[in-house]
């Protein structure tokens, strides 16, 4: 019984702040406080007209899409190699490329800043952020794709080659369709991580901020707080939808490969 209360309290603690977002996003007052004063969609309307916000969202979407593509591609190569081939120091190498998963982002951000500015002497741009985001997203992609490849019989590609297909078309016709749900799931998760990543983007963005950095900037003006709430509401909704799609695809992949679901990444 006490465990049940604990579980409920835990969920409340976890999700209550997020539920406040939509509540105040539709509240007709600039001050974030109860009692609520009335329903409005003004804040959403204001979002639609804010030019600098649009620029920030555009930056973020661009970065997130490129990051999703690159890190999934890298993850695909790593997961395939890990699942299908034996090579010296395999365990060590696989561990090493998973390391960014536990590296503090602020450390990654500072060291990348030093590398980009001092060593490479490059300017800040969306591409510097993309490089950093690929670094932190790739381990997640590998983790997801590993699952997809581990369920794959290594003889399948050989069987396709034995039946007359070249190495590449064997991969395209057999491996790719079987891991496709994993690829999509991996892209969605990389996209989500990149989209709301703050610390690295804060350090590495030049004159054009990404969306999280822009939101942080808005917080200095109390009057714009409800707009942030409205934006947050949209982001939460989008995250939930994307992660749900990712999980559904992963399950479909399992079912298609005819293996038992042992619980996924999420």
């Amino acid at each position, binding site marked *: 019984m006490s465990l049940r209360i604990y579980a409920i309290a835990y969920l409340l603690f976890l999700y209550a702040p997020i539920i406040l977002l939509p509540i105040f996003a539709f509240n007709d007052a600039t001050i974030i406080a109860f009692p609520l004063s009335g329903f409005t969609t003004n804040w959403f309307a204001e979002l639609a007209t804010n030019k600098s916000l649009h620029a920030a969202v555009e930056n973020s979407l661009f970065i997130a899409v490129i990051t999703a593509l690159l890190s999934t591609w890298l993850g695909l190569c790593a997961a395939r190699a890990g699942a299908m081939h034996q090579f010296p120091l395999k365990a060590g190498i696989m561990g090493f490329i998973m390391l960014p998963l536990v590296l503090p982002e602020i450390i990654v951000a500072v060291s990348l800043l030093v590398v980009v500015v001092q060593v490479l002497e490059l300017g800040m741009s969306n591409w510097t952020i993309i490089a950093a985001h690929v670094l932190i997203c790739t381990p997640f992609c590998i983790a997801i794709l590993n699952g997809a490849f581990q369920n794959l*019989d290594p*003889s*399948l590609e*050989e*069987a*396709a*080659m*034995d*039946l*007359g*297909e*070249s*190495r590449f078309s064997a991969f395209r*016709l*057999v491996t790719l*369709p*079987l891991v496709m749900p994993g690829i999509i799931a991996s892209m969605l998760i990389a996209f989500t991580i990149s989209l709301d990543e703050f610390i690295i983007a804060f350090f590495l963005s030049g004159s054009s901020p990404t969306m999280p950095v822009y939101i942080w900037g808005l917080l200095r003006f109390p009057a714009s707080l409800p707009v942030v709430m409205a934006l947050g509401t949209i982001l939460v909704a989008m995250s939930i939808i994307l992660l749900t799609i990712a999980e559904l695809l992963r399950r479909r992949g399992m079912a*298609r*490969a*005819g293996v038992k679901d042992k619980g996924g990444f999420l």
Partner: protein
Amino acid sequence: MTALITLTGVNKYYADYHALRDINLTINEGEFFSLLGPSGCGKTTLLRTIAGFEMPSDGVVMIGGKDMAGVPANLRPTNMVFQSYAIFPHLTVAENVAFGLRKSKEIDKQTKAKMVAEALAMVGLDGYGKRAAHALSGGQRQRVALARALILKPKVLLLDEPLSALDKKMREQMQVELIRLQRQVGITFILVTHDQEEALVMSDRIAVMFEGEIGQLADPETLYRRPNSRRVAQFIGKMNMLDATVEVVDEVIDLTVRGLGSMQIEREQAPEGGQVGSAVVGIRPETLGILFEGETTERKLVDGVVDEVVYYGDMTYYDVRIEGVEQPLNIAMKNLIGRPVLEVGAKTQVIWDERSLVLLP
């Protein structure tokens, strides 16, 4: 008989590991050939070398008179049934079977569909075409894998331990079906197996492999009755080994076998020729016998004491100690009417015959 596959001086190294040692082998057209050996003996490596998944470190592989050096698996006239069957789980049974026909653009859709139906009928899976491949049982997957390989009419079908994943009943049924299928299509089958019984039942010829080399290559009967070495004798079936001393090797061989005494055997009972000096002789359990009360024999007898009894229903296996020999003799007896099952410690007489001996170096 025409040679289809010729391997000459084939070696394979993985770093320091010598997986195949100087393999010389000819496999004929229409033959059911088996590679038999314990795990790690190189039999699968040899099969994969023929298939084109492994390239030999040196030596020549010829298939149908063509040198296969540098020819990848997809361009070889071989098809393989994998140990895991490697059925494509995202395709239907029919799509799996038709997979190899993708490249043949000149065959139209209807002909392809007909070929798939025929291939499925051949392996006893009529009407399974629309099923999802991942919903099949082990035996059905096996049949799909066979149909998928045979539809391409390869010169050689390679089978990598195809029956090891099936239960005993299913395995025995598939053995018979594979033999029937091989006779029906008439192409060369090369089977890799660690199951000596399976190899004996199915093959025209068997190559027994140990540690990367071929220990003996012969038809099943020769392999069973006249193994050329102790390791082959012990790997194929059960074999009693007795120390012996060879005295004269001439038209016939004179020797003394410990526990059985002096005797003469024919030259052909020594597959490796036989040399004067110490050797061993092998005797199969079913060529020995126990003289039960009321039975008579014209063959030779030696006194013994029952050391162990294993009852199998149709057969009883006895371990019988005879004087002067440490290891008891294993004897297989049919449980015919009127024959009792002896008890441990019973005094008995062992029937033997020098014609069933094989002299091993």
